[in-house]
């Protein structure tokens, strides 16, 4: 019988086919291959919906499709698909956002008469295919391969306008910085194989299950001389390197703001819903492995909380609309990491989902504004766009309310749950979690401030330039994705209203229920047990009403919004950032993160490389050349016996034979 799961590979392959079509014959197609991409992503979306429905019916799927390297011992390298509630949900998010981004591209790229459209749509197709492949991967190595493909596609798409100076350099930076993290990820993958002999995510022989069994003393694995707990933490942190690079966490966040050089729909796809989500999704995918390591969880939570605050402060002073969104992306992914580290697996998944919707919406809304402004991104040249583009304004406002976490928009529910879970587990007596929580809470205020600063500067007040007075219109292909996402940003939070459930007793935490079924080792209950047994989250049995923390964070978000309203919602706003004095310069220069990283690359690494080069040129090459010069010299002498005169050879032969006979005779004692 052919079931929906037999079509799972097609979800990945359809965008890949659109990539091939756009690449091969895109020049001859109408719209430069856009229709192929739209059809393919629509097909993937339909299949993903079917998959979600099947998973909702309680079915899951795990199959190995292709073994591409048979191991001599137990290790086989395979491609397989794993469909469980988490990956099904992610499939739906990615295909939906990819589909909408393809439609939006019609308005942003085709209607603006961009050149090189087949290359653009080929990149989008390959990008979507690699992200979907990453989502359905059933082992860590396959996940790594698609992770790298995602990185490659981001390079191709960020550098789309390669004739200008900015994009190629931003693309290279994105590629190199994420590659730096992926280097650790690769070492982590090898370590997982070396330790467990498998990299499968699911089953009793998967590496999270084996690690758990080893810690419980039921089995033993090769931990290379470390205590199992220490070693699992090391491996987890190695893999986390890739996560930090891709999800743009401190200190590898520097590529993401620069990556805004790419076309805006690409920013929506890469930096809101998919590529950056890959890192967080990976941690959620192998959460069973992180949940057993208190140290790794504490590091994840702290990095997340710190990044959330750090990026939010930088977002306060930016002039370009996309830069503000870039820093908000970093900040929001910080919240997801905070949730994962704080034991809020569902909260992180929830925020991942709502963020995908509202951030894609904000990027597409920014794209719409940029079309209207004839590709001027400076918010100080905008203003008063509210009355000229109402659809963009109201959808953008919906996304902004969600981003700032204002009740009852999607972001409120998810961010509230993130903070609540962290606080609950932090109050058990974990000061690191409490510190991370405090940073996350403070970032809520800044989020409200920079979000509404952006909204007020862009849409309110009086127009501050000629283009803002008479903006370029946008068509249905821009408005349709905005409306879909605008509605989702408003209502997506209702799938998981935990505070309401706690207060009224209604069973409306659908996402909790959703993530509770599936494979035994990959459910919320199992993660709850692990979090209880190993890092002792929730072991104190603390009861905390969600209303108090929720009210605090909502109050902070509203305070931020009110401050933004007071400062910027006036007809002629001015740059209040100057009042910050020195701090403004620091913030404007992103805390000099780029400078010190360039210094590390240029000053430190270069001199080490020069010394290494000297060692290589002097010592290593010296030894090799010395050995070869001995051979050369002796060869040049000994070759003289080859005179070309046959008689000489005969003499040598005879002498050799005589010498041999003599030697045998002496050894055999013939002459005695």
């Amino acid at each position, binding site marked *: 019988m052919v079931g929906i799961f037999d079509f799972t590979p097609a979800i990945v392959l359809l965008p890949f086919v659109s990539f091939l079509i756009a690449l091969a014959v895109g020049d001859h197609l109408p719209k430069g291959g856009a229709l192929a991409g739209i059809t393919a992503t629509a097909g993937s979306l339909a299949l993903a919906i079917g998959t979600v429905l099947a998973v909702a019916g309680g079915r899951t799927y795990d199959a190995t499709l292709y073994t591409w390297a048979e191991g001599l011992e137990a290790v086989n390298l395979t491609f397989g698909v794993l469909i469980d509630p988490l990956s099904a949900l992610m499939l739906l998010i990615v295909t939906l956002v990819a589909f909408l981004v393809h439609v939006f591209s019609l308005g942003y790229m085709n209607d603006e008469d961009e050149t090189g459209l087949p290359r653009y749509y080929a990149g989008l197709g390959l990008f979507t295919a690699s992200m979907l492949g990453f989502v359905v991967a059933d082992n860590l190595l396959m996940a790594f391969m698609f992770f790298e493909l995602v990185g490659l596609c981001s390079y191709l798409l960020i550098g789309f306008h390669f004739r200008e100076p900015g994009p190629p350099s931003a693309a290279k930076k994105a590629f190199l910085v994420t590659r730096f993290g992926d280097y650790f990820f690769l070492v982590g993958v090898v370590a997982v194989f070396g330790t467990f002999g498998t990299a499968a995510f699911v089953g009793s022989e998967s590496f999270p299950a084996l690690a758990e069994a080893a810690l419980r003393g039921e089995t033993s694995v090769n931990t290379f001389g470390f205590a199992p707990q220490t070693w699992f933490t090391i491996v987890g942190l190695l893999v986390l390197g890739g996560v930090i690079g891709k999800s743009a966490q401190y200190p590898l966040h520097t590529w993401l703001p620069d990556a805004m050089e790419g076309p805006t729909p690409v920013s929506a796809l890469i930096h809101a819903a998919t590529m950056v989500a890959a890192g967080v999704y990976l941690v959620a995918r192998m959460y069973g492995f992180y949940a057993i390591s208190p140290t790794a969880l504490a590091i994840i939570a702290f990095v997340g909380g710190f990044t959330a605050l750090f990026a939010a402060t930088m977002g306060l002073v930016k002039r370009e609309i996309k830069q503000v969104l870039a820093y908000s992306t970093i900040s929001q992914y910080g919240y997801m990491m905070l949730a994962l580290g704080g034991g809020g697996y569902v909260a992180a998944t929830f925020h991942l989902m709502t963020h995908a919707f509202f951030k894609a919406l904000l990027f597409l809304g920014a794209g719409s504004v940029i079309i209207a402004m004839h590709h001027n991104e400076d918010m100080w040249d905008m203003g008063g766009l509210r009355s000229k583009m109402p659809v963009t304004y109201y959808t953008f406002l919906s996304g902004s309310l969600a981003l700032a976490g204002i009740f009852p928009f999607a972001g409120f529910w998810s961010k509230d749950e993130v903070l609540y879970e962290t606080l609950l587990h932090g109050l058990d007596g974990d000061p690191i979690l409490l510190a991370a929580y405090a940073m996350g809470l403070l970032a809520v205020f800044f989020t409200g401030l920079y979000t509404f600063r952006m909204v007020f500067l862009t849409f309110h007040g009086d127009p501050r330039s000629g283009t803002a007075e008479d903006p370029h219109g946008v068509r249905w292909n821009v408005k349709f994705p905005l409306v879909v996402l605008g509605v989702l940003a408003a209502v997506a939070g209702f799938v998981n209203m935990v505070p309401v459930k706690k207060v009224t007793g209604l069973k409306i935490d659908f996402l909790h229920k959703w993530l509770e079924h599936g494979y035994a080792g990959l459910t919320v209950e199992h993660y709850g047990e692990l979090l209880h047994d190993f890092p002792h989250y929730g072991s104190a049995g603390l009861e905390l009403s969600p209303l108090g923390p929720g009210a605090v964070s909502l109050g902070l978000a509203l305070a931020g919004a009110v401050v933004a309203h007071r400062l910027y919602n006036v007809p002629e706003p001015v740059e209040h950032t100057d009042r910050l004095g020195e701090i403004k310069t620091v913030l404007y220069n992103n805390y000099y993160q780029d400078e010190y990283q360039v210094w590390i690359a240029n000053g430190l690494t270069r001199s080490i490389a020069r010394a290494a080069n000297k060692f290589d040129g002097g010592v290593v090459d010296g030894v090799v050349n010395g050995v070869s010069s001995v051979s050369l010299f002796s060869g040049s002498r000994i*070759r*003289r016996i*080859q*005179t*070309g*005169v*046959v*008689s000489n050879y*005969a*003499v040598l032969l*005879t002498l050799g034979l005589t010498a041999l006979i003599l030697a045998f005779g002496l050894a055999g004692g013939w002459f005695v």
Partner: protein
Amino acid sequence: MVPPEYYLLLSAAVFCIGLFGILTRRNALLFLMSVELMLNAANINLVAFSYVWGNITGQTFGLFTMALAAAEVAVGIGIILVLYRSFDGVDVTDATTMRW
């Protein structure tokens, strides 16, 4: 019955004559002849031991060696003809192009 030492002495003498020819002559034809002598010295040994041990195998091998020698002469003469054509003579010390 002639004792085998005499055969061995004869064969050693023939071998040494051949070897002497190879070491001292420069004419390629004489080279070929000397090689034939050495080959036949070995043949004498084969036949002699076969006779002494009463085993026919050695004599069979002797026949094979003769056939081989005939083939070798055919090849050798060919080489000498080419040598003559290329170097206008059959002096082996003239043909020294294949050296270091």
